[in-house]
Each structure stands twice: as C-alpha cells, then as structure tokens.
C-alpha cells in the first residue's frame, strides 16, 4: 500500500511538472494520439511517451513485479478488443484516467469529474460481472 501512495505522489509530481514547464495537462490518451498522428508537428508528445516507457523500466527495478500469467487465445481476444474500446473511447471522451481522473479532478472540472465517475462506475460493473469469484 505504501508503494501505491508513493507511486501516486510521483504521478502527481509529473502532472504538476507538465503544467509548470509546458502549461499542459498530463492526459496520456491525448498525448499518445498526438505522438501517433502528428509526430513531426511536435516532438514533445513522442518524448513524453518514450519517457513513460523509461519510467516503467525504472519502476520495475525499484519493486518486484508480479510474475506474468500465461496468455491463452481467450486472453488474447479479450486484450485486443479491450484495446480497441479503450483507444476509441478515450479519444471520443477526450481523456482517460490521467487527463480526466487525475488532472481534471485536481482542477475541479465538472466535465472531467463526470467522465471519471462514469468510466470508474462502468469499469467496476464490467470487471465485477466478468471477473468476480
């Protein structure tokens, strides 16, 4: 649980830094879309995405990641379709857990808080129907 709080502090520090240094909200779905569709217009979204990956390696050195379960055909199909839904849904809804959930909530944006309540509620309902034991 300490790791969860420390990790959250780092995420908050990164979101604060992005606002202070660049005046940008740390919304990963929007930044990833810019890195994907207009990589030459601006270099910074691509470098933010690369930074996320580098941070993942650093984090994995700082903790013991849990072993990764074997993937079967059902998992592969579920992961691919979930990817489609997350990619499309976060763009249609203009944000994800970082942009709406962290930055929008911190700005007390009613729009972001509404989106966060909806995707958290739907996520919990979906996961509980599919995965509850």
């Amino acid at each position, binding site marked *: *649980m300490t790791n969860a709080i420390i990790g959250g502090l780092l995420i908050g520090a990164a979101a604060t830094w992005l606002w202070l240094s660049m005046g940008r909200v740390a919304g990963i779905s929007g930044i990833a879309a810019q890195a994907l569709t207009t990589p030459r217009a601006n270099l*910074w979204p691509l*470098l933010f995405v690369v930074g*996320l990956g580098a941070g993942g390696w650093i984090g994995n050195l700082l903790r013991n990641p849990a072993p990764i379960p074997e993937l079967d055909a059902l998992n592969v199909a579920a992961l691919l379709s*979930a*990817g489609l839904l997350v*990619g499309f849904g976060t763009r249609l809804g203009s944000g994800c857990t970082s942009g709406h959930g962290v930055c929008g909530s911190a700005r007390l944006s009613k729009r972001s808080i*509404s989106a966060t309540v909806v995707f958290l509620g739907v996520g919990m309902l979906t996961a509980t129907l599919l995965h509850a034991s």
Partner: protein
Amino acid sequence: MSKPIAALIGGIVFGTGLSVSGMSDPEVVLGFLTVDGGWNPALLLVMASAVTVTALGYLAIGRRSAPLFDTRFHPPARTAIDGRLLLGAIIFGIGWGVAGYCPGPAIVGAFTLDPRALVFLPGFIVGMLAFEGLPKPAPPQIQ
C-alpha cells in the same frame, strides 16, 4: 530547457509512478475494479495521492502568467458535459473493466515488453485511429 526535454522528464516520472504503484500490472487494477472478496484498494490510494499532489501543484503554480518553457498555458478548451464525453467514458470503462488496462499502464507495459500490453497495444492504436476517421464536432466557442 526545451519543451521536448521537459516532456521527457515528465514522462519518466509519470511512468515510474505507474510502475512503482503497481498500476502497470492489470491484475492489480482488476483487483480494484472487481468488487468481490479479494478487493484491492490500491488504485484508490494511487488516485487519491496523485489528485492531492496535482491539486496542490496547480494551486501553487496559480496565477503565473506563463509556464517556464512556453508563452501560455493550454487548459482544455471543452467544458460541456455532452453525449460524446459520456459515451466515450462508457466505451472506455467497458474496455478498462475487460482487461485492466488504461492508456498509461498499457504504454508502460508495452515498453517493458509485458506480453499482455503488447497484445493490447495494436487494438488501442487501431481504436485511436478509428476515432480520427470520424467527423469532428465544432470546436468549442472561446469566450
């Protein structure tokens, strides 16, 4: 310092946070989203601590006239709670509940060669590109 370097630093700190917190492991995320006997509150602690720090950070930056490396701030232009926002949040929520991946952890997982994220990522990219093909709503009116 230039904007790309500032973004790289921000990405590294954000990615480290996602990994250290356990959020790059979809099983931990599903442990929160799935309400049963094995409920894991980790995601709630991550969100609470991230939102608190960000809110204090935004307050501290407060009335600065410009960020360090740009001429102006870029707050999100849209403020309306409309159908696109809610439908997008519903579609995202379903995908999140199926696999336990939202965009940040999926990107972190793909870079650290987690096979689950490597399967999720092509779907995620195709989903984003499918949205790009849709007609765009009118930009919000700037007052």
